């Protein structure tokens, strides 16, 4: 308990960032802080005139780029696994076909399984290398930052506007703008929980796709562990097809 409080004091007392880029760097350092993470989610997508769709899955992450997803439901998807080794290296294990397929880069732009999330937002673990930021607002509770895409970056968003909570140093809302400067998606992160002063995560993440009749998907956190000691071998192709555990 004493350690927790001491950590909180040190974390909260860290020097305040002076400009937009510094705020983004702070955000990145908080998000990629844990060595590894295990998160279990339920992803609910609601679309006007359609039945709600629920997908449940576990996400294992390590470092900045490695990510493995295991699908738990619905029945059609159960057993399917995906692996991201780098922005250009993505694989999927298809249990019904007993084979691994490499995913084409262009599939990143498509909605993830018909949800409002796409691989593009999900793979942007660090924002500072992608966007040049400008501090728009600095209040007691929030930083508002506008990030403009840096030259040569391969993301479909020309601009993002983030509202970052000062207490957890993570985003409360992110607005994504396309190449024409039009707001295309809005992501909201709600109900932050913290395992210790440095490590917090949102229990609910909502994404609204304004280009698809306000299609809304909501991620609900069911389980969250950090620094569980995931081995590098867990993020290999062979582990993907063997379904090996940590």
């Amino acid at each position, binding site marked *: 308990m004493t350690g927790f409080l001491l950590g909180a004091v040190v974390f909260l007392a860290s020097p305040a960032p002076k400009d937009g880029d510094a705020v983004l760097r702070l955000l990145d350092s908080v998000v990629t802080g844990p060595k590894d993470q295990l998160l279990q989610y339920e992803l609910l997508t609601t679309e006007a005139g*359609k*039945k709600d*769709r629920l997908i449940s899955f576990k996400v294992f992450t390590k470092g900045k780029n490695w990510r493995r997803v295991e699908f738990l439901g*619905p*029945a*059609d*998807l159960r057993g*399917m696994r995906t692996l991201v080794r780098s922005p250009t290296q993505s*694989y999927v294990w*298809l*249990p*019904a*076909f*007993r*084979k*691994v*397929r*490499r995913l084409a880069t262009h599939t990143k732009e498509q*909605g993830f*399984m*018909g*949800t409002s999330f796409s691989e593009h937002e999900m793979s942007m673990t660090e924002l500072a290398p992608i966007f040049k930021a400008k501090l728009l607002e600095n209040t007691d509770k929030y930083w508002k930052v506008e990030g403009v895409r840096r030259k040569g970056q391969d993301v479909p968003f020309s601009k993002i506007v983030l509202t970052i909570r000062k207490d957890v140093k993570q985003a409360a809302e992110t607005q994504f703008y396309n190449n024409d400067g039009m707001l295309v998606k809005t992501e909201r992160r709600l109900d932050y929980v913290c395992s210790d002063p440095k490590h917090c995560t949102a229990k609910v993440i909502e994404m609204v796709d304004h280009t698809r009749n306000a299609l809304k998907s909501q991620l609900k956190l069911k389980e969250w562990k950090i620094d569980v000691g995931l081995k590098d071998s867990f993020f*290999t*192709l*062979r582990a*993907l*097809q*063997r379904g090996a555990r940590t």
Partner: protein
Amino acid sequence: VVITSGLTTVASILSFMTMDVRPMQSFGLFTAIGIFSTLVLSLSFVPAVIRIADSMFKGEVQATNAGIELLRVWTVSIARWSALHRARIGVGLLLVAIVCAGLISRLKTGVDMQTFFNAGSPPDLAEKFMQRYFGGSQFVQIAVKGDANDPHLLREVRRIANEVSMLPKVTSVSHVGDALALSNSAMTGAQRIPDTTEQVRLLYSFIEHEPAVGQLVRPDRSELLIHVRVEAAVAAEVERVVAAIEQLLASGAIESYRISKATKANALRLRSVVLTQLRVLAQQHRWVVPEERWLGHVPGALMRVPQNLDLDALTKRVEHFLLSKENAVPMSESSARSTALALVELGEGADDVQILDRLRRLFPTWDEITLEDLMFSAVGPVEEAWQQQRASQHAADVVGAMGLSRLSDAVTSKVEATMFDLYSPTAMLPSDAADARTATYAVSGLPVMRRGLSRSVKRNQLVSMGSALLLVLVIMSVVFRSGLVGLIATVPTLLTLLVVYGGMAVMGVHLDIGTSMLASLILGAGVDYSVHLLSAAREDGSGDVAKAVSRSGPAIWINAIMVAAGFLVLTLGDARPLRNVGGLTAAAMLIAAIATFALLASVGPKVVARSARRS
């Protein structure tokens, strides 16, 4: 006169209630209520207005009377002339009636673009644009109820779609099997419907959120749709396509089935399905294949599954996979070559244990985990490579049997994908067993709805006209206290109906929901002229034609001209059905007036006088 006219019109319009088209029933009911209300006002409000008008505008009314006097004199002279030449006029009108009755048999029914809009109108131009560049705008749907996760049903749906696509005027057919095959090609390289339910279910999860797929299969996968695009714009042509599809489903669709394994019936069934697919490919790519080849050479080639596969080519396929990034164990070119040779040597259908054992002997220094990884990576792709090699050689044989020379790679891969279906270990066969799986097929879509409407219009036309005639006849007989007078009163309107419907046949105007109203409208309004004339004759009681016409003629003409003018307004719009109803009703009013003077003036007054004397 007013009461009789009003009641006959109300009765005619009420005959719409016998129709089975809801809007027409509502139209009939509310129009009848409206006319009845007008009748009540005519008997209460109008006399009061006339009285006031008489006292206020005496001079002007006198002036108007001079015009009416002229109309009266002219009409009396026509009636006198008709009475003098009644035999010739009677024969002439009888001939007209016979000719028109004959023409009615040529009257077309059916609803299409031509019945709604004029040539050159924006909707007509849009239809032509769709036909020229997109294969038409008419869609017929085949609704299939069954398990859309079952690959066998999906292949049956594809077979039906293939057969439909070969019908004349059908430009394209789409179904969910196409989307699944495309998705399967991303997973396995073969654009075909996969073999297992698990594979189908997994592929659905990748594509079912796409709006286009949502139009082909229900989210619970209990029903799917085949969309058929038809390039015909004329209702008759579209109806022929619908009938052909219905015939095809009645004669060939399997509605109750079982999944059968490795029987001769299976092989024949699979061959028939593949043969249909090849015919569709031939049609799409305009291959000229003589019919005798389809009947003899091609089925023979399909049954001869290659047994001696080109092992060099097969080894290259396996090697290609081993060197790809999808192999979990990165390999050098020489290792990949030796592994490919070893795996091919094992033969087709080697299981996990055999493969692992062979790999252990090939790479004795490798650790067990790496060997297992390699086995796990290779087992599926090696199995696929055998099938691909067989399909490739088989496709070459079949293309040769069709008498075709070398095809492009893209087309060759389509033929190869088709061959895969021949090797399916199971097939769908008809079954009457109690536990048989079921699938039902129903043709639907706008053309089917239009056909139903067209049939309804025909039936409604006969029923509503019959009931309107009967009601009018009864009212006239009661009012004039004579069945004969009632019958005579309806004759001019009947002749008018024959002329109008005959004219429609000559002008190519279809009997549609709009023109089907004509009979009741004409009957209701047209019979008023007989009522006017016969009432005048009854009041006079002398049987003198001139007197009866003199009393009623101007009223009949004014009535006819006013009703005709009212309906003529409808011809100013763009919508063809309204123009048709407006123009034809206007013409009918004038024809009914002329027919009343020509037919009724010569015999009506005398019959009425005789009947009045008798009663």
